[in-house]
């Protein structure tokens, strides 16, 4: 096996600077690099990326690879995949880290498939194992009911990292590093999938992913009407409303409100759940919440295991007095 000394991060740029999810990868990659003595590299794709290389170095990268191509100005998955695939073959890293965000959840398996190597998907943590010289990846399986520690036995070892699993790397302007440009061959025929329309979601109010406070309802609410009460509470507290998958599947609220493994991942400071049982699939979407509060009539419900504060009882009686007291406290 080729003893490569490089760890490669597939980086993304958002509004002109290194994306938050990429900074999380830099944090994960930096600790792997320090444990293994390998170099931490990052590939930044697009055009006119030179302005971002110092930022990547400040956040922990030793080498920044700029993949500069006019066809990468706008994100198109087939072209982007081909570019990072060519870069990976060129750089020959022993480890590749990709964020399991919207783009990454599609790119990571395709990159692994194209390189014909396995992928450790949706990892919460990656560690370097000194005696074997391999990366061990920790990932939830069976909807979060179990955790698996896995090792990929062929190179490059690829892991996709769940967003918010790592704190983003902090910037240290005294860090030094180098940068190189990498040429890739791309043509328009490679772009098989074309976007022909975009319909923006016009849900008003606070965005679920960035909300400081989220109030979510579950199947136990019995129908769509109680969500109006949740919305009133959310508006009062400056928060956003979410829901469990059962609620969305029943059509009580629209899909963009779904929190969980197959919905949105949130990380508010306060997450108040009402009549949500807390199946592990749901908890997978709110593992980043700092404080979880549960209102549920079943003391045995799973939600209480992950909550700091709980009330056992009927939400119909609890919610009005809770809302009223909050109103008094905040006025």
């Amino acid at each position, binding site marked *: 096996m080729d003893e490569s000394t490089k760890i490669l991060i597939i980086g993304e740029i958002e509004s002109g600077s290194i994306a938050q999810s990429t900074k999380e990868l830099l944090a994960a990659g930096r600790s792997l690099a320090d444990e293994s003595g390998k170099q931490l590299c990052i590939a930044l794709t697009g055009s006119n990326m030179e302005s971002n290389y110092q930022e990547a170095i400040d956040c922990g990268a030793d080498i920044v690879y700029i993949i500069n191509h006019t066809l990468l100005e706008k994100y198109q998955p*087939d072209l982007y995949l081909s570019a990072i695939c060519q870069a990976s073959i060129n750089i020959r890293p022993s480890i590749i880290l990709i964020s399991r965000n919207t783009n990454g959840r599609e790119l990571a*398996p395709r990159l692994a*498939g194209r390189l014909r190597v*396995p992928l450790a998907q949706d990892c919460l943590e990656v560690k370097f194992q000194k005696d074997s010289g391999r990366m061990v990846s920790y990932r939830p*399986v069976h909807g979060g009911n179990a955790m698996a520690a896995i090792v990929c036995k062929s190179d490059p070892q690829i892991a996709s990292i769940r967003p918010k699993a790592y704190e983003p790397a902090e910037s240290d302007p005294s860090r030094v590093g180098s940068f190189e440009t990498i040429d890739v061959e791309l043509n328009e025929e490679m772009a098989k999938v074309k976007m022909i329309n975009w319909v923006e979601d016009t849900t008003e109010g606070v965005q679920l992913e960035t909300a400081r406070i989220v109030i979510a309802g579950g199947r136990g609410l019995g129908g769509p009407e109680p969500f109006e009460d949740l919305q009133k509470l959310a508006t009062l507290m400056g928060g956003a409303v979410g829901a469990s998958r059962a609620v969305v599947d029943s059509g009580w609220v629209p899909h963009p409100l779904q929190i969980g493994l*197959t919905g949105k991942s949130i990380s508010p400071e306060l997450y108040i759940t009402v009549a949500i049982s807390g199946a592990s699939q749901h908890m997978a979407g709110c593992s980043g919440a700092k404080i979880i509060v549960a209102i549920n009539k079943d003391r045995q419900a799973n939600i209480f295991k992950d909550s700091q504060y*709980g*009330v056992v009882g009927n939400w119909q*009686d609890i919610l009005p007095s809770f809302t009223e007291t*909050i109103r008094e406290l905040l006025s």
Partner: protein
Amino acid sequence: MIYSLEVNFKSLVQISMSLNIIVLAKQVIDPEMPLSAFQIDQESREIITPSTIPPVVNGFDENAVEAALRIKDTQEANVTVISMGQHFALDVMKKPVSMGADQLVLLQDESFHNAMDALVVAKILSAGITKLGSFDLIIGGRQASDWDNAQVPLVLAEILGLSCITLAKQIEIKNEAVTVERQMLDGVEVLEAPLPSLITVSNELGQPRYPTLRGIMGASRKQPTVWSAADIGINSDDLRQQIEIVDLYLPTSDKDCEIIQGTDDSDSGRLLALKLREAKII
């Protein structure tokens, strides 16, 4: 030159024949089973299949079957469901057929483990699909509820060299292309790809239809096509796992929930709000 002849021949065939749609389906441990039945075999590092709870077709794969059947509702189409594994509960795996799929192909061999290595699984499925012949569309579920891997369809698309779109909420086929509506965080994307293509679907697509009585009767008479590793040309090299599970364990929760208890539920609600203020959370 031979290659271009093949392509021309295929497009000619497609004009005169109906669409061939392949749906990927997996048999999984029922994810709705009580947590008390969930057990890990530490030695083999595998989840123990409970003997008293029957397996199910993976939920998102039922969405995939539904997606295929919706296409078949509006145009001439042949829907083949394909699955791979060591053993199958035939009555469970026949569900897609009772929903309306035309045939079931089981790639079944003692050497086909339900493993986390998506590359091995995709190689097996690719061999089975290649043996089936030409197709226009492959539809799969976004992920299986056992390993939550969300990889096999995408790796399969790479092996077969197909265009691919994930997380479709609506699929339409016309003029040798597939149009897909895709739910994103802040809106809906409409994407188009040339056929043959691979699409993954999620619960946004909507509820899978229930089997009709006629469908169930029909499915009970239909026998699946069963192919072994040898039948589809899979050898031990293809089956070599490149992922090793070094540990499998139950996660622990470190939070200690403080239960707020008032004189009645209404009082508890009031005390909860006061508690959050006291703890400086609000």
